[in-house]
């Protein structure tokens, strides 16, 4: 444990998270006062102070969201750098599985980034109104977001303090590999069916966004994320690594693959975020945004094209598929 906590990247990461959490705690306290005393129709100094405080909450959330977006890839980089200290780990995949907190923590981080982004969307709409129409809604949203952020902070500490450097972990070829004939894909799918499902879901999501069908978008997006994850790890990844047995979501983030993993996961996650944001704007707040939809479709299309390009290029170079 001590070796892990002396690792430079771990120190940088935990310090950054702790500082941001301290700011968020301040925002949380102010949010509580907002929820308790807010009344826009009042002309009192107290109400004007609350309006000023809402600006602080907004600034803090914006600021921490921006930095957390940087800290997420940095988190992955940190655990990747720990693979030298954790026996058996060849990349972040092994280190993430070093204890029970790793996968949950990473998933929570992504979910919180999504939710924070949605909070910013509500904030954007609120600022446009002349009566802070959505202030209570966004304050409650932040309240629950903060609970999630607190859990994230706790899991951050628990995860890093409980990584053992003496017990070996499995490397990605074991975690994701089809060892002994076992099929790592869900629902008993095979590669072909997975690919068909992947492209079909993409087409469905594309159409639902194009036609402003918010409800359908919200339903299809998580499904697409689920299938896309498996598609990237079990199919597209193998073409990035050019090795049919190398199945890993993390190795593609490393420099020998030109950090393409950041692009792949980035386009996917950002694309889906804008789908959800657009759906929220249109369904909950009745504000259709063509711009949001265009951005979402653009990002998702680039994601699909990027992944498909690896397969196509491999096929063109070698005449066969893996």
């Amino acid at each position, binding site marked *: 444990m001590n*070796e892990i*906590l*002396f*690792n*430079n*990247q771990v*120190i*940088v*990461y935990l*310090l*950054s998270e702790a*500082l*941001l959490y*301290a*700011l968020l705690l*301040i925002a949380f306290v102010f949010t509580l006062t907002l929820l308790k005393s807010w009344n826009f129709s009042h002309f009192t100094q107290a109400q004007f102070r609350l309006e*000023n405080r809402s*600006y*602080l909450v907004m*600034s*803090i959330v914006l*600021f921490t969201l921006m*930095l957390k977006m*940087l*800290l997420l890839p*940095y988190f992955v*980089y940190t655990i990747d*750098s720990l693979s*030298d*200290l954790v*026996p058996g780990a060849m990349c972040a995949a092994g280190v993430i599985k070093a204890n029970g907190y790793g996968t949950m923590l990473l998933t929570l981080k992504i979910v919180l980034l999504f939710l924070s982004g949605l909070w910013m969307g509500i904030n954007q709409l609120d*600022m446009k109104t002349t009566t802070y129409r959505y202030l209570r809604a966004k304050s409650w949203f932040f309240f629950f977001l903060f609970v999630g952020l607190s859990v994230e902070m706790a899991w951050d500490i628990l995860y890093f303090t409980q990584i053992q*450097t003496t017990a070996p972990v499995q490397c990605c070829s074991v975690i994701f590999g089809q060892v002994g004939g076992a099929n790592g894909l869900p629902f008993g799918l095979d590669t072909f069916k997975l690919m068909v499902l992947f492209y079909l879901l993409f087409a469905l999501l594309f159409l639902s966004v194009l036609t402003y069908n918010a409800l359908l978008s919200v339903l299809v997006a998580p499904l697409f994320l689920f299938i896309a994850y498996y598609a990237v790890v079990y199919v597209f990844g193998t073409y990035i690594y050019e090795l049919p047995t190398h199945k890993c979501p993390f190795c593609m983030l490393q420099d020998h693959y030109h950090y393409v993993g950041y692009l792949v996961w980035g386009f996917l996650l950002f694309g889906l975020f804008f789908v959800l944001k657009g759906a929220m704007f249109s369904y909950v707040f009745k504000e259709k945004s063509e711009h949001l939809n265009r951005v979402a479709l653009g990002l998702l299309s680039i994601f699909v094209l990027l992944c498909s390009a690896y397969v196509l290029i491999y096929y063109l170079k070698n005449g066969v598929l893996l």
Partner: protein
Amino acid sequence: MKNKILRYQAFVYFLTLTLWKQKVKHTAAVFISILIIFLLSAVLFVSSSLKQTLLHTVKQQGDFTVTRLKAGYATQTPSSWIEQIEQIEGVTALTTRVHGRYFYQPKGKSFLVVGIDFFDEQNSQLLEALIGKMALKSFLSQESMVVGQGVKNFLTAHFYEDTFSFKTPSGAFKEVHIAKQLDESTNLIANDMVIMPIALAREIFGFDENEVSDITFNVPNEAEWDTIITKLHLLFYDVRILDKREIQKGYENMFNYKGGVFLILYLVTLLTFMLILYQRYAMVYSSERKEIGTLRAVGWSIKEILLYKFYENVIIVVVSFTVGVLLAYGYVFLANAPFLKAIFLGNANLSYTVGFTPVLELGLLGSLFLLYAIPFLVAVLIPAWKIAVTPPKEAMQ
């Protein structure tokens, strides 16, 4: 997209204009920032450079080093073990070494004497890395050795120009010719090293013909390493096995530890700096308050003031960081980090100069940036908000 850029063009113009015209205001913060970044970067540059050099050396060594233990301490290893180890599947490039510390009693200094078989393939690669291609024939025609720079300087200072006489355990002296000095670039590992033929080293340390210090070998298939370790333990009950992974991990931990200690000390400095920053920006000189009040009065929103202050600080952060890192780079890789290197390299047995191999990892720079930028921006966020929300009329009074 073009409209968006145009819309922010004037904002950026105004931001850079006011920052330049009011640069004196930010001098203290920038100066302290550069100092902190400089120190921090220098420490991390030294650390990663040393780590890389050492790990590079470790890579060239044998995968395994096997020594005999007696009463828990390393002792002479029987060379007969070679035949038994050779039998193990997957073992290659087996070689023996005789090495130890020779103390020059009058002064209490020591040399690391390494005796190797100069015709062995594994050793010749290592040797080539240290001393380059060399005429072995002339070297072996007399009792000769190759010495590190620290050893050479020491011997010269004590009037041993061409030869040095080792005192052997039997009491007799063994005169050895100093054939060559190792290059300065090897000082990190070989400063106090003396390399000689294995037979000569045996003589100096009083080893028997069938004794060595340790046996090294390679196992190309890393998946077999744990099995090999088990087999060795089954073969010999009194064996200590050191594999390359452990050495690498040891170095990683050592540098993490030293680097970690520095970072923790840095945290203390950092917190103080944050407090200073907070107070500095919270003080909000009346002229600055008035200016912000004026901007609010002519139509700037709180959001715009916040953006203005935020980007003002981001520019300060980026400029300070760049200058600090560049200065540290020059200090470590051009000036060889005087004062700082002693902390990492400790009190040397024999004094020496060492050059740092330039190492510039993106990840390292990213870590440095986060370590500095986040605390800085966190410290100034609330003061910036306070100034932004002051009612314009009140601010202009």
